């Protein structure tokens, strides 16, 4: 009686855990079409995460709202509202819904970078946020 439930729970957590990796792979595959041999790098993702783009004065970098660590809860720089951690190890549902991920990349890249992010940047970002350094 208990075993199927447990298996289902494991399957569910694995589905969550696998989702960011699959999403990162999809972005990496797109990036390697433009730059053959592309491989997602948590190191580049970390640099991107910490970089001051300084396009927006309220939101000069990812860290303005998401703090220096994606594993920590953040705070909206304009509204002051709490933001759940970006890292899937801290907030399991992160990067499990591709449509939601795309929407927030589009919104936040447009305002923080002043342009949309490339597939390579997205792959690096997810690699850093989900795997850490």
């Amino acid at each position, binding site marked *: 009686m208990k075993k199927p439930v447990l298996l289902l729970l494991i399957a569910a957590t694995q589905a969550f855990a696998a989702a960011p990796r699959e999403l990162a792979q999809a972005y990496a595959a797109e990036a390697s079409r433009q730059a053959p041999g592309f491989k997602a790098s948590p190191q580049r993702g970390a640099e991107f995460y910490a970089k001051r783009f300084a396009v*927006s004065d309220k*939101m000069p970098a990812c860290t303005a709202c998401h703090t220096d660590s994606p594993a920590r809860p953040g705070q*909206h720089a*304009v*509204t002051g*509202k709490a933001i759940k951690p970006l890292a899937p190890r801290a907030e399991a549902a992160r990067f499990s819904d591709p449509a939601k991920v795309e929407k927030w990349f589009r*919104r936040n890249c447009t305002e923080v970078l002043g342009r949309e992010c490339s597939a390579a940047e997205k792959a690096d970002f997810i690699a850093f946020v989900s795997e850490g350094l």
Partner: protein
Amino acid sequence: MKRILVWDLPVRLGHWLMVGGFALAWATGDSEKWRLVHVFAGSTVMAVAAYRLLWGIVGSRTARFAEFVRGPGQAFAYLKSLLLARPPHYAGHNPAAGLAIVLLLGLALASGASGWLTYQEIGGEWLEEVHEFLTGLMLAVVGVHVLGVVVGSLAHRENLVWAMVTGRKLGRPEEAIAGQRFVAALMLLAWTAAAAWWLAR
């Protein structure tokens, strides 16, 4: 027919507050930088719509729902009649405008409520989808409403946009309303400011 006062100040002020609030909310919907402005603008639309419901019961004669809300059948019959040489003229809201008002008030409240619940993180991601859908639908109704106003203005040779600014339209003297209702207009402003501030805080 003479130019008579048909729209009181709360109706006109409320109309243009909704126009401004909706436009601003639409322009800032996708931005985190303008998130507070978006919520304040959307709250303004919602607060005006709520006040309009009350004004539709206790307001000037031409503002009352009982005076101008007709079924969709009459609304479409009126729209068809605009193609005729001499369409029937209404001093107050025509049946098509009445339908637009009901739809826009309903959508303003529903879109505002879904947006506010999303902002307060009470609803999930799905509620944000509902909010976007309702707002898109509202923009579509706005489009049809504006088109109707243009066609109606041409058919009646009467500038209906300007009528919503001055409150004056062609009509028989006995169809005029008694006055501007300044106090109710001030109450609308006070209520909208208070409600929008409370909702957006």
